[in-house]
């Protein structure tokens, strides 16, 4: 983990909500695990004050580059979307425990809800490079809340759902699960809104599949010192509070205490 001022090599608006930013950060790009994140200072003023966490969408240690895919939500992401090529971005990372690749080879299902596709890209690439067979299912409310759904097919068979039917199947991600041959899967990975993750866990559980989820929690430090980003894990009756930033953001779904 390091702090560095990374040069913005490119920034591109992909949809009305999504931006893709490419950074030059050779030291950071050297040792990334898919699912890790960067903690980014979005402006120089004191409002917004805290850094904002973004999954590492992709990285290339050779070129020293790194990409973040982000959705404009509030003031921090708004400021980030206005960065210009050539500016320096104050980033801290790579942070957190990413997705674990548990076997040498196998079949993986990657499921993303909305901006949840962000960390799956680098994961899909890594799996593909390790000769895993990858299936991807992406869903969102509407087309503009999906960014790279068309490009994902280079990593594996890709299914798309939107609630308004503006692209792909009209419906929810969970409606697409029957299309997937669950019995052949070795690992399921997911990132998205918590209710989606909870529903997926019900499904993987009933299919006896291991599920890794990337969780989202408001963060101050991003490096395990403020104890702000807690997620109950362990036994529901006597949960332990894990830190999403350093114990996660990726957790094995069976560890997580899911809300009812």
């Amino acid at each position, binding site marked *: 983990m390091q702090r560095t001022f990374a040069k913005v090599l490119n920034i591109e608006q992909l949809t009305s909500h999504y931006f893709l930013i490419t950074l030059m950060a050779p030291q950071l790009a050297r040792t990334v695990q898919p699912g890790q994140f960067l903690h980014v200072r979005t402006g120089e003023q004191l409002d917004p004050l805290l*850094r904002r966490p973004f999954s590492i969408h992709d990285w290339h240690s050779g070129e020293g580059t790194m990409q973040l895919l982000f959705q404009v939500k509030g003031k921090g992401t708004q400021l980030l979307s206005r960065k210009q090529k050539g500016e320096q971005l104050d980033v801290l990372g790579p942070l957190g425990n990413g997705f674990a690749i548990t076997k040498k080879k196998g079949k993986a299902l990657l499921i993303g809800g909305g901006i949840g596709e962000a960390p799956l890209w680098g994961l899909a690439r890594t799996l593909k490079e390790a000769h895993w067979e990858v299936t991807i299912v992406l869903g969102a409310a509407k087309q503009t809340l999906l960014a790279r759904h068309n490009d994902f097919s280079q990593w594996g068979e890709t299914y798309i759902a939107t609630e308004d039917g503006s692209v792909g199947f009209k419906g929810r991600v969970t409606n697409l699960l029957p299309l997937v041959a669950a019995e052949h899967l070795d690992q399921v990975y997911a990132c998205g809104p918590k209710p989606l993750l909870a529903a997926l866990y019900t499904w993987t559980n009933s299919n006896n599949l291991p599920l890794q989820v990337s969780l989202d929690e408001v963060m101050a430090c991003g490096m395990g010192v403020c*104890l702000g*980003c807690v997620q109950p894990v362990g036994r529901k009756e006597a949960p332990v509070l894990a830190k999403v930033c350093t114990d996660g953001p990726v957790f094995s779904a069976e560890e997580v205490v899911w809300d009812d």
Partner: protein
Amino acid sequence: MINPDLTVKISSLTLKNPVMTASGTFGFGLEFANLLDLSSLGAVVVKGITLTPRQGNPGPRIVETAAGVLNAIGLENPGVEAFISDILPELLPHAVPIIVNISGNTLDEYGILAARLNETGVSALEVNISCPNVKEGGLVFGTVPEQAAQVVAAVRANTRLPVIVKLSPNVTDIVSISKSVEAAGADAVSLINTLLGMAIDTTKMKPVLGNVFGGLSGPAVKPVALRMVWQVSQAVSIPVIGMGGILSTEDALEFIMAGASAIAVGTGNFVNPQATVEIISGINSYCSEHEVNLKDLVGMAWEAN
């Protein structure tokens, strides 16, 4: 001046420079070892420690506000025994003074904590009588001068370490509390701890924080912290450690000129985890350029008054 004198004395303890970390914002220090040289700091003040382990408050525990942060961690910590056996051995080799922030629910607990930390190699105790998140003890001790003094006396009686008392800003009269803890034997006061605040989530129509209330810190509170440092440092003769919204050398100098003998960076560590070392180098340059030692700057702004 090539090498200005930046040292600070707090009773028997001499810090090589006035920049410390604020409790609860720097973990146990080890997490920062990748980002900076811990031994370059004036001191590391560790996360608040209690007698027994505490799980802290339910989430959400953090919410950003305008130029500030509300936290309701609730003193999550592994307890003093785990601190001594598991954490301290890793920390001591870093050759930086370790100051342990302690919180008790009763006078006895403060005394036991102080006694337990006596021969462990830590350099000083910071007695937190001000944490607003703990329902028992905390807030009360810090808001009534007599009770604050009792806590200090209980700690004083059980340790030979320098005793720093961390005060709550949520009081009508910070000066009388400071005088009271000074009289009870405090070697220094730290101020300020967080201001009690809250935020509402209008979508969910309920408080954002799991604990409803939280402590406000960061640049938003700096004017209040500076005012209290100014008032207290002129009313007591022990050193004042100033904190509240320090992010830059400029902020640190404001506190020092207002009367702080040393300063601590809290929320600033989240914004810039290298803020402490940048400030040390900034103060060093400032003193060099102005040909002064640190102690010449302490309370510099009083004279104008």
